[in-house]
């Protein structure tokens, strides 16, 4: 348990963001967190502070960018032992700094690293941690507005919320998004959350704020003896074909690509590639030998429930739908407007996939570029 009185809530102030970097590169999701922290801090009338750990010189390239998206201050801790992420070194420096400076909120991106680090720190600090949040509020009016939009709760229940409540309300999906839960941590500080990458919006780049950011160096109380793990190597590799069932996005093709199979598959691959997803197929596509059997979605293939399922030229036989209808969002492109796939699709486009998909690819690229 932390050796400081973290139950005296009034001692804690400020919104902190752990600024994850890998090999000297800031993880893009950190800027989403900084932008969100800015909003929360404005509601609370406090500062946003970035917490940046890394090797010598790590701060030089990053503090301005952190400032531009909303950080008032960046605490920079440079140490050779922090060059590469290790649970032990990072948890020690973060917990020591939190205990010394007492932030009210600490946000961490829910990356593989953030999800390793967050719980270790929360356990040491004796505080609560909410995982993989998709929505954060302090202000109750804003939270009520969110509930009206995103929940089926009766209005009376929403109106009955205590307007004076200043706890961080951390909302996250559970059970594959079938249920949402808002979690609070009312008795301990800091209130910690890991936040799902890609969900919160990055704000505008602000030149004046970039130049005004305050940098404060933090001395790490760290020695080799604190590290119980040793990183032998860090390897970056191109994504291999992910297992269909584990993919967040699946783009599937069916009989509709028959007139030009090669192009059809190429389009599906390109579309899937834009999301970091994988290509699947209906039984027709597998039986015709266009794709190997491990790509098959459906009753006799794999059951998938990705965040996004795109069905290209798939009529939507019941055997196919059985394998994909629980996807969070389904987009169907088909020539026939009476295709049964449209019964389960969230969005349908009736048209020739060879014309529609290239336009879809362009539109997505444009949207990503403007983000």
């Amino acid at each position, binding site marked *: 348990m932390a050796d400081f009185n973290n139950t005296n809530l009034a001692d804690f102030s400020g919104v902190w963001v752990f600024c994850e970097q*890998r090999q000297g590169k800031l993880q893009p999701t950190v800027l989403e967190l900084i932008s969100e922290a800015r909003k929360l801090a404005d509601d609370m009338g406090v500062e946003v502070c970035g917490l940046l750990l890394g090797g010598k010189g790590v701060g030089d390239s990053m503090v301005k960018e952190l400032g531009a998206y909303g950080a008032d201050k960046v605490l920079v801790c440079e140490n050779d032992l922090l060059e*590469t992420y*290790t*649970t032990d070194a990072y948890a020690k420096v973060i917990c020591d700094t939190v205990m010394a400076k007492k932030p009210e909120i600490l946000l961490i991106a829910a*990356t*593989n690293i953030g999800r*390793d680090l967050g*719980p*270790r720190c*929360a*356990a*040491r600090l*004796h*505080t*609560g*941690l909410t*995982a993989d949040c998709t929505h954060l509020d302090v202000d109750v009016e804003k939270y009520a507005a969110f*509930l009206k939009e*995103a*929940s*089926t709760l009766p209005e009376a229940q929403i109106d009955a919320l205590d307007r004076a409540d200043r706890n961080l*309300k951390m909302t996250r999906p*559970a*059970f594959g*998004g*079938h*249920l*949402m*839960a*808002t*979690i609070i*941590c009312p*008795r301990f500080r800091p209130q910690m959350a890991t936040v799902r990458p*890609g*969900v919160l919006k990055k704000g505008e780049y602000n030149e004046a704020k970039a130049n005004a950011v305050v940098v404060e160096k933090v001395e790490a109380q760290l020695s080799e003896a604190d590290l*119980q*793990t*040793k*990183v*032998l190597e*860090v*390897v*970056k*590799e191109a994504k291999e074909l992910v297992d269909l069932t584990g993919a967040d996005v699946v783009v599937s093709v069916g009989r509709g690509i028959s007139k030009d199979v090669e192009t059809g598959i190429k389009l599906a691959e390109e579309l899937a590639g834009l*999301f970091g997803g994988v290509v699947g197929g209906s039984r027709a596509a597998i039986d015709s030998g266009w794709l190997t059997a491990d790509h098959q979605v459906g009753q006799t293939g794999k059951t998938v429930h990705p965040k*996004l399922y795109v069905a290209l030229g798939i009529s939507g036989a019941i055997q196919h739908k059985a394998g994909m209808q629980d996807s*969070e*969002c389904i*987009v169907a492109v088909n020539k026939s407007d009476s295709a049964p796939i449209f*019964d*389960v*699709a969230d*969005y*349908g*486009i009736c*048209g*020739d996939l060879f014309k529609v998909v290239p*336009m879809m690819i362009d539109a997505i690229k*444009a*949207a990503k570029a403007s983000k």
Partner: protein
Amino acid sequence: MKAIVCVKQVPDTSGKVAVNPDGTLNRASMATIINPDDKNAVEAALKLKDETGCKVVVVTMGPPPAQGMLRELLAMGADEAILVSGREFGGSDTFATSQILAAAIKKLGLEDDDIVYCGRQAIDGDTAQVGSQIAEKLGIPQISYAADIKKEGNTITVKRMLEDGYMTIQTHTPCLLTCIKELNVPRYMSIKGIMKCYDKPVTVYDYNALKDDPLIDPATIGLKGSPTNIFKSFTPPQKGQGKMLEGADMSTCEELVGELQKKHII
């Protein structure tokens, strides 16, 4: 030497998820399974047993029916099972759960050459927190997202997955590893295992069995000892009729992308 595996019984979320009218999960109507990542953890422990002849102990916290799951794990090849069960433990969040499991592991006796295995995350809570928190409370190193594990003496070398690659990390026993499905393919129960599983010991640790551990305190376990509370739980609005986007031109595609952005899919 022991391999200790923390396992959770979870509702099967791949089937239909039933929600009560008040917005809570209707657990009674759902089938229960062994949490998938935990099965990979059990397999890793059984592999270590195949190689070294070590003892495999599975530990779970849950209501008495979780015993059924423990028997399955004994039938897979585990030697001993611990059920941590008590009214005092109910309502625990990840912090409180890890206090209790760490206390159970201490009671079991954590030796210098032991390895604790957990799954990366449970499919009901999806938090991926309990493993790290147990490691912290036991004061041992952790390596999460293990996709390959090698053991030489007391040195453990793990391939730890990142989103864009992997790290190779070395540590020493005792340590805690959280396992992912890339690590292995879990074995089935054997007929012989099923026959024998009722002869193997299942020990129940209740509140009285653990209460002398400093980790177990009304202020650190159960609903009251949990730092986090559920403030509201709710169901998102029902999925309505799908939307047909008229025309098959560029503006249709832009409209689609706009909708996907609103839903945070892009």
